[in-house]
């Protein structure tokens, strides 16, 4: 399969929130983002998945007008990121990899400050603050100093703040970095609620597979290029079918029996592999067919890890070089 086939970017005539054409960013001789093109439909949750150093943050910074492209072009909310930079900034919400709250202020004061920066009309400020705090379930902490917040709460407050001025597109750069799994799950609830209730387009980057899984579509980015783009389901399907691997007391006759029943199966070194539509649904019938001869059963559905491995020849976990310092920084900044 070539890279091109893996990139499916046909959104029909859905209105677009982000349109990117040949976007490139060079630092000296080094190309951090290399000729990237894609579109994001309005109301989509779109994830950039890639190892550290892949160019995710650099790409997001260009879309947020914080860095200028070396070449190529992009539109966010229908506005050109170079010629309409200031207008773009009013239409987007931003949550950075590093925390950007004032922890000597209360949650409400942080939000009020933001409302003024983004020109939220005076008569709407209070209602918006109430609303976004509800969306991230922090209403009861409205008057609390941010210095008393846990890392996860601060993150969610930042997301609320990013939504305060009702942006069209919310950019989240590694929003769950350094959060524990429960907080991460809570944050995802927040994000999906924002999308459903406020109709915002969510553009996020991550290097967690489980996280990208929640997105409507995923672009896998590696060394500055998009190497695959599709729904999580389609990406996994592209890598291969679900399989059920078996060990039985008599592999040869078990294989014959399965083939006779219409299964696509083959012998392997250790037993039999059966290719199925849906591994979960298939295990029961297969075991029934073979009766008591089955010793072990292992069902497998391709994961995004397999997808990443398939397209890059590497595992995403190998390239985590700076994840730990980043986390330390996120926390260090909080304590200060």
């Amino acid at each position, binding site marked *: 399969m070539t890279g091109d086939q893996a990139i499916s970017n046909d959104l029909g005539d859905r209105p677009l929130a982000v349109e990117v054409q040949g976007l490139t960013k060079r630092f000296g001789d080094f190309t951090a983002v290399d000729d990237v093109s894609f579109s994001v439909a309005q109301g989509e949750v779109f994830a950039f998945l890639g190892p550290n150093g892949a160019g995710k943050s650099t790409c997001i910074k260009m879309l947020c007008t914080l860095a200028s492209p070396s070449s190529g072009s992009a539109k966010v909310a229908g506005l050109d990121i170079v010629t309409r930079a200031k207008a773009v900034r009013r239409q987007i919400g931003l949550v*950075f990899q590093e925390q*950007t709250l*004032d922890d000597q202020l209360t949650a409400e004061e942080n939000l009020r400050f*933001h409302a003024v*920066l*983004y020109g939220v009309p005076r008569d709407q400020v209070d209602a918006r603050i109430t609303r976004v705090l509800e969306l991230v379930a922090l209403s009861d902490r409205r008057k609390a100093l941010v210095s008393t917040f846990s890392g996860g709460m601060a993150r969610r407050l930042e997301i609320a703040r990013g939504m305060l001025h009702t942006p069209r597109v919310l950019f989240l750069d590694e929003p769950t970095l350094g959060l524990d799994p429960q907080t991460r799950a809570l944050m995802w609830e927040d994000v999906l609620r924002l999308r459903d209730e406020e109709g915002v387009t969510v553009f996020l980057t991550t290097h967690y597979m489980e996280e990208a899984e929640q997105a409507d579509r995923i672009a896998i980015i590696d060394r500055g290029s998009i190497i695959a783009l599709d729904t999580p389901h389609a990406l996994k399907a592209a890598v291969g079918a679900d399989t059920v691997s078996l060990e039985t007391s008599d592999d040869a006759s078990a294989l014959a029996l399965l083939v006779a029943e219409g299964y696509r199966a083959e012998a392997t070194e250790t037993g039999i592999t059966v290719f199925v539509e849906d591994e979960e649904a298939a295990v029961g019938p297969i075991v029934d067919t073979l009766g008591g001869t089955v010793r072990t059963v292992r069902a497998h559905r391709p994961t995004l890890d397999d997808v990443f491995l398939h397209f890059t020849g590497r595992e995403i976990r190998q390239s985590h070089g700076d994840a730990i310092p980043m986390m330390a920084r996120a926390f260090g*900044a909080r304590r200060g």
Partner: protein
Amino acid sequence: MTAITQSTAHREVAARDTRFSDELRVAGMVWERELIRYTRNRTRIVSGLTQPVLFLFVLGYGMGSLVGSTGGFNFRQFVFPGVVAMSVVMTAIFSAISIVWDREFGFLREMLVAPVSRTALVLGKTAGGASVAAVQGTIMLALAPLVGVHLTPLLIVEVIALELLMAVAMTTFGVFVASRIQKMEAFQVVMQMILMPMLFLSGALFPLSGLPRWLMVITRLNPLTYAVAPLRQVIFAAQNMSPAAQARFAAGVTINGYVLPIWIDMVIVTAFALVFFTLAIWGLSRTE
């Protein structure tokens, strides 16, 4: 769905261009944040007072016995305006330098990526720094009776006005320096290398007359000199000093025997403030 119609209303607002009133609103918010942070940080208020108080009493009594008094006017009374100036200057610089903290803790980014002008941010920061510095300097006035300095309502108004001017100048200077500093450690160096020499060579703590030539030249080149002198001049004018005391404890800046009037000092300080206001905007524009 109310949520949806509300959103559309916001988007129309978001799409229009920034207006002057929006910029002022932003400056006001930045100013308010400075005040909130100042009032919330009691240790800062207290520590900002201890150093000048220390100077007032240690220098006032320690040096005072060496210097003696002339016509009933002593060194404590002389040094008092300088110490008030010192507390204004230090508070203003600390306020401005909080930009370095904001950079370290990320909040600077929240401000810099917003669709607002750097001018509005620097304006708010300057107003904030100047306000808290003037408040701090005015708190110092409470010590005046203890060292035998008389205050009148008019004098207090004049002092506050001069404190504000001095504080604006020092805040813009501080914001500019802070905009070029990436690390908190560098700030310590700046304090040692710039602020302390500026303070000590401003005539805040000793009379500007009768100095060795090299010291006289340095004090006249130091912009802070022109901020401290008017403060001392208006305070002394209300003190009923004998001519001998006025000669001994000269308040104004003399250049070639000519005593600069207060308004020239103020023009110099204003020019300094304008230059650094512009430089501060430039400095912040260069950071992402």
